[in-house]
């Protein structure tokens, strides 16, 4: 399964990247599964992906909850609470 992953604002800075193409080989059925896999990359990733009550996510540009299913080709975005307006 191939995913396009985007990171915004403070998350982009904490993780040192704004996007990546990820080919997932282990079973990743939901957003939660993806977050667990990314969290295993190291301390900065764990801080963002597993110990972060303020983490927000979107799948294909729609806000998504942790149990939302993922499909091949999805665009997944991670970001902090919004502060526009």
């Amino acid at each position: 399964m191939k995913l396009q992953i985007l990171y915004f604002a403070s998350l982009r800075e904490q993780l040192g990247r704004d996007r990546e193409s990820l080919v997932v080989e282990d079973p990743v059925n939901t957003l939660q599964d993806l977050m667990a896999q990314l969290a295993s990359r190291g301390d900065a990733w764990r801080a963002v992906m597993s110990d972060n009550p303020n983490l927000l996510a979107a799948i294909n540009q729609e806000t998504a909850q942790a149990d939302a299913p993922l499909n091949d080709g999805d665009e997944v975005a991670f970001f902090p609470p919004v502060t526009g307006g």
Partner: protein
Amino acid sequence: MAVSVQQADFHIDQVLDELAAGRRDVGAVAVFIGKVRDINSGDDVSTLTLEHYPGMTEKSIEKIVTEAEQRWALMDSTVIHRVGELQPTDNIVLVAVASAHRGDAFQACEFIMDYLKTRAPFWKKEQTADGERWVEARNSDKKAAQRW
């Protein structure tokens, strides 16, 4: 409905000329303009940088406006949100709503602003004398959005 995310500033007279253009039954236009303040959380702000999620931003604003159109009797709406580097006194956001009656116009305009603040993917970073920092989401904005 007109939705724009742009670096450029806007001219309000021009926006209002295009709002519900050609309609002769508009009785009320409510407009909100958000601006960059020179101070936030006690520190002087020199520059504000606005980042967004291209694509999702426009979609989420259109969704907010569609929701407003379902709840109130609106004739047209315009939302313009600026991104990039802004200085104190610069305009950030404009919401303009046209209706037959002022109650609908006021409420829809305030509703759209409250939801913009809590649902549209924009993020502000402030440059102050002490360096730069991401603006934190406010509880008061969450509460304002929960009213509706």
